[in-house]
């Protein structure tokens, strides 16, 4: 689709999944999922519970082997060279996978040691990350005393210990309050601007809208849509403006008057009409001028933009 890579200095996509299939007995978690993530971009893997998002992440992180299909992360085949893949990835999960009984500093140092950093390097990296994630004050407290947001930050920090070029985030903000979520989004955005590639699974459409360069929607183990957030939304039609009048007679007159603009009464509300905003702000001005010239007073104006929620519901039949 896009012939120009957003990160021209890199050789190829940072993540490739090719026809990934995974069966657990009779359960077909993935039924042939393919996608690519160009370097230094974010792919949002969207789907309802049980769609196969986590299974895909577990295959890409070498935790599971695919039943068939292939995948490569940072240029390395996940089945043939899992150990080499592990050296190039960071995983942060839906559970903040940190040790409750260790301090923040001990957790990050342990992950550094297990990444085979020298002891002093692991400690220094831990201190650095704790500062970056505003956890310095809590560095020497056991994690069981941390709030949910602090745990998530520590979990993400643990994924970053070895400076991995590829990050896999499985529902990184599930259960977080809005301000902690915002903080985490900012961190992820800054990592990407520094060249990290991110695959992010989420049920929050807002999150995908905010962070993802491209979105793959999966349902029942199949890709049901892919594209940018804007492309997915445009599949559901354009932005529209809704005008409300004091009573339905005024609305009827306005619909006739604005026939050239494609106005139609809202089926749910006979006092309101909807006009597709093909010409942007100019359309709004023309419409309002015309109504004003005919003494039709508008009570309320609403802008209706299709949201990813609309896309998601129409694609999967599920509410997020």
């Amino acid at each position, binding site marked *: 689709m896009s012939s120009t890579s957003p990160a021209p200095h890199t050789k190829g996509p940072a993540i490739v999944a090719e026809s990934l299939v995974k069966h657990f007995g009779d359960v077909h978690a993935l039924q042939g999922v393919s996608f690519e993530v160009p370097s230094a971009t974010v792919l949002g893997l969207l789907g309802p519970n049980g769609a196969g998002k986590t299974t895909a992440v577990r295959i890409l*992180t070498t935790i599971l082997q695919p039943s068939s299909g292939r995948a490569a992360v940072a240029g390395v085949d996940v089945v043939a060279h899992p150990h*080499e893949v592990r050296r190039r990835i960071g995983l942060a999960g839906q559970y903040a*996978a940190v040790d409750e009984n260790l301090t923040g500093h001990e957790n990050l140092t342990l992950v550094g040691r297990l990444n085979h950093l020298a002891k002093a390097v692991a400690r220094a990296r831990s201190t650095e990350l704790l500062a970056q994630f505003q956890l310095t004050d809590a560095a020497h407290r056991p994690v069981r005393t941390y709030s949910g947001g602090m745990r998530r930050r520590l979990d993400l920090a643990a994924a970053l210990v070895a400076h991995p070029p590829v990050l896999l985030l499985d529902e990184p903000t599930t259960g977080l309050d809005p301000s902690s979520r915002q903080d985490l989004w900012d961190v992820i955005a800054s990592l990407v601007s520094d060249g990290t590639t991110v695959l992010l699974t989420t049920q929050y459409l807002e999150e995908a809208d905010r962070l993802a360069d491209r979105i793959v929607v999966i349902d029942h183990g199949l890709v049901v849509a892919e594209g940018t957030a804007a492309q997915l939304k445009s599949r559901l039609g354009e932005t529209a403006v809704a005008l409300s009048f004091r009573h339905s007679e005024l609305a009827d007159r306005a619909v006739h008057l604005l026939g050239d603009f494609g106005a139609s009464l809202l089926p749910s509300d006979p006092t309101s009409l909807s006009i597709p905003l093909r010409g942007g702000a100019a359309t709004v001005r023309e419409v309002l001028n015309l109504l004003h010239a005919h003494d039709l007073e508008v009570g309320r104006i609403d802008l209706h933009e299709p949201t990813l929620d609309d896309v998601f519901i129409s694609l999967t039949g599920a509410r997020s």
Partner: protein
Amino acid sequence: MTSTSTLPTFDPSVGTSDGSIGWVFRDTLAMTGRNLTAMRRVPQVLVFSLVQPVIFVLMFRYVFGGAIQIPGRDYVDYLMPGIFTQTVAFGAINTAVGLAEDKGKGLLERLRSLPMSRSAVLGGRVMADTVRNVVVILLMILIGTLVGFRTHTNVLAVAAGVGVLVLFGVALASIFVLIGLSVPNGEAAQAAAFPLLAPLVFASNAFVDPSTMPSWLEWWAVRQPVSKTTEAVRALMLGGETAGPVTASVLWSLAIMAVMSPIAIARYRKS
């Protein structure tokens, strides 16, 4: 755009392998350290793993002990090696609980995504539990001394007795690793462990002379690993013929490990 893609080729010689024995050792030490730190942070675990054996000591020493006749020995001397084995056996539950909790909290997933030695996760668990066993056994020897238990051999023999117990603990750990990996959480691990341990610990010579049991039960009670280990510890700490019981206990432990370790490791790789 994905339909025409091809996987990038990768030359494995570019990366260095971290699978060497040196890294296995260092990763295992790192995991052992992590588990020991966690134990230190939650001293209740150590305390609770002492409460049960202490209650048994008090019960058998002062409540039932008067009614149990062991020819040629003070009952407290007969009892304490049995208590040591029991402590090690029930302590093995901690191995299962620890692993099940790591699994339930998603920690095993993270560890699997790290370029570390895979066996270090299990090795570090068993090593830390072995350290805990040594501490608990020494504390139980001390508690035994307070209620009248006396060793009748030398320090080396007593140390060998502790060694037999520790080896038995490692063997049991290989069973409990499998349980820990097979259940969803710590509570389930605890529940799964008791029915397995009770017949081993109680249908044994740990507290009573098996010759008082029905003959079918006695047949089992004199041959099974808890009894053999208790017998070995008695011989090493109190005196008597050591070679037979020590060999039997060590063989039991090695046999359990030989059978269970590959199954546990396979389970870990698969889960």
